[in-house]
């Protein structure tokens, strides 16, 4: 038989239950709301249909391609030829994504059992296999690099630590991937996170990797992206039915998850595009990438479903010009709290950033002037001389640092719930918290962990004992602050 003769029947294998009710087989707590009879989900349809044998053949070919590339260039000698700044993109991606992908395996497996149509369940099954692959590949490839740089070990370690970035990533991943029901998972993960962000992020990262000559990373993200674009199609198929039955809830999920996804995306991709990629290899700024790949494409998708832009759209546009710059400058001066290294943008980089961000970059110039001045005044190579010592503050929703808004107006805002004060990095985070306070109120951010004695108050003790870093692995300046364009003051010694 030809595929088209049997696949439509094989995709749709739902049947009527005799001994149990539909609601018992698919309880709303597990299958999600709005709870509709199967009749309403019957039209669920993914645009690109595949069979298991096609899937296995396709994946085997992709894995063979990756293996060949790993044989050729997946070795330490190749990585030694790459820009030391670029390697931090790999460390950041390597830590934050692979085990999040494993959590996505679990989210997909829940949909394999509790999604409301058999074609959806089958697509989620392929999605689960995809995500398991996306866990294994980077774990394997980054493991190859531990022997040249111990920071790569954080690919395995990151989610098992109480590092502040890991606390934030877990807060997102636990809700997005581990605990959401199939409807929220499909909208949050497939529709927003994958269709809106990561599917396109992989296009951008592959392009950067090609530019810097990192063939292994380029091949890996291209291979992963081809899976993402297939299983991301679950999202629009669910959204189509959801908007017919509960458009308000669809809009709520969209607004919530677009903001939550954006914050992590901005850090991982924004740092790579505007700071870690050597200037000569940059093809576009992070903001331009957002405009070209995310905004146009995503707004078009919203139109198709009759959905509105998220209510915070103006703040979001302002954030595309600021958020990753705010976090990068902050994290640079607290680099020992993370597992990757940083660079100071030099005069040429700053000129480029000013051209790309004419409206916002002037506010960051004095900050980098000050950091450069601190380096000039410090002893050569004394990395901790240009480092913060105060405890920084965190958003009680996203758990990331209070670094939203602009240098002239930090957008942190407060709220009181059941007599307890809470602080957030931004109005969207505050409103997400206030929409479901019981879901979030007991999660302690780092400040509250310090104040209750769960984490040490001394920054060095916090880094070593709580964040799990030591001198070998904590983040440093790639060049130890010794830049030819920033010669030391005489009192600071020779460079």
């Amino acid at each position, binding site marked *: 038989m030809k595929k088209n003769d049997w696949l439509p029947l094989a995709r749709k294998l739902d049947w009527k239950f005799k001994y149990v009710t539909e609601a018992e087989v698919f309880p709303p707590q597990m299958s999600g709301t709005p709870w509709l009879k199967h009749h309403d989900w019957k039209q669920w349809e993914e645009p690109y249909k595949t069979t298991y044998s096609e899937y296995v053949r396709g994946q085997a070919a992709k894995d063979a391609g990756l293996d060949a590339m790993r044989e050729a260039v997946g070795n330490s000698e190749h990585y030694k030829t790459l820009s030391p700044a670029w390697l931090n993109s790999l460390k950041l991606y390597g830590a934050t994504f692979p085990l999040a992908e494993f959590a996505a395996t679990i989210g997909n497996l829940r949909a394999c059992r509790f999604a409301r149509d058999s074609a959806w369940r089958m697509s989620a099954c392929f999605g689960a296999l995809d995500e398991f692959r996306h866990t294994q590949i980077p774990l394997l490839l980054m493991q190859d690099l531990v022997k040249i740089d111990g920071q790569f070990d954080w690919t395995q370690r990151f989610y098992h630590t109480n590092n502040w970035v890991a606390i934030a990533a877990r807060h997102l991943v636990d809700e997005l991937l581990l605990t959401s029901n199939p409807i929220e998972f499909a909208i949050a993960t497939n529709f927003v996170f994958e269709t809106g962000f990561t599917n396109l992020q992989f296009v951008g990262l592959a392009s950067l990797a090609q530019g810097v000559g990192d063939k292994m990373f380029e091949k890996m993200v291209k291979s992963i992206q081809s899976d993402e674009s297939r299983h991301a199609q679950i999202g629009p198929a669910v959204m189509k039915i959801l908007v017919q039955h509960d458009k308000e809830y669809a809009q709520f999920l969209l607004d919530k998850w677009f903001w939550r996804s954006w914050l992590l995306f901005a850090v991982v991709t924004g740092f790579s595009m505007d700071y870690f990629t050597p200037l000569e290899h940059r093809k576009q700024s992070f903001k331009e990438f957002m405009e070209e790949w995310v905004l146009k494409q995503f707004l078009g998708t919203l139109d198709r479903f009759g959905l509105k832009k998220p209510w915070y759209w103006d703040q979001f546009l302002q954030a595309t010009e600021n958020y990753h710059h705010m976090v990068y400058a902050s994290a640079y001066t607290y680099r020992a709290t993370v597992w990757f290294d940083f660079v100071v943008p030099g005069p040429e980089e700053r000129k480029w950033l000013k051209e790309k961000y004419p409206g916002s970059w002037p506010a960051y110039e004095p*900050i980098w002037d000050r950091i450069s001045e601190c380096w000039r005044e410090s002893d050569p190579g004394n990395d901790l001389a240009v480092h913060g010592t*105060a405890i920084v*503050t965190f958003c009680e929703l996203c758990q990331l640092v209070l670094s939203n808004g602009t240098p002239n107006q930090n957008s942190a805002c407060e709220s009181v719930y059941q007599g307890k004060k809470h602080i957030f990095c931004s109005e969207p985070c505050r409103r997400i918290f206030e929409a479901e306070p019981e879901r979030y109120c007991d999660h302690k951010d780092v400040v509250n962990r310090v104040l209750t004695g769960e984490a040490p108050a001394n920054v060095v003790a916090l880094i070593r004992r709580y964040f799990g870093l030591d001198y070998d692995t904590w983040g440093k300046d790639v060049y130890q602050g010794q830049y030819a364009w920033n010669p030391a003051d005489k009192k600071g010694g020779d460079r």
Partner: protein
Amino acid sequence: MIPLYAFLEGDTIGLLLLAYPQETADQLQKKLFSMARTRVQPNGEYFVLFHGKVMDRNQTVAGLGLSALDRIDIRKGAAK
């Protein structure tokens, strides 16, 4: 000590400022300048805001009733 959320205009991050009850607005300002020194070089006049109101330079933390996890902002310019 009273932990306060503190935001300095020109900086990229909020910091946790540990204040003594008898410390004045002026002293809080100096403390935050020192905590943010790697990123911000203070330049010109600044004033301290609490709940949208300008703190008098000599007003104390206790006098104003600041309590744990309240927020202060140190803004650039002359107090109006």
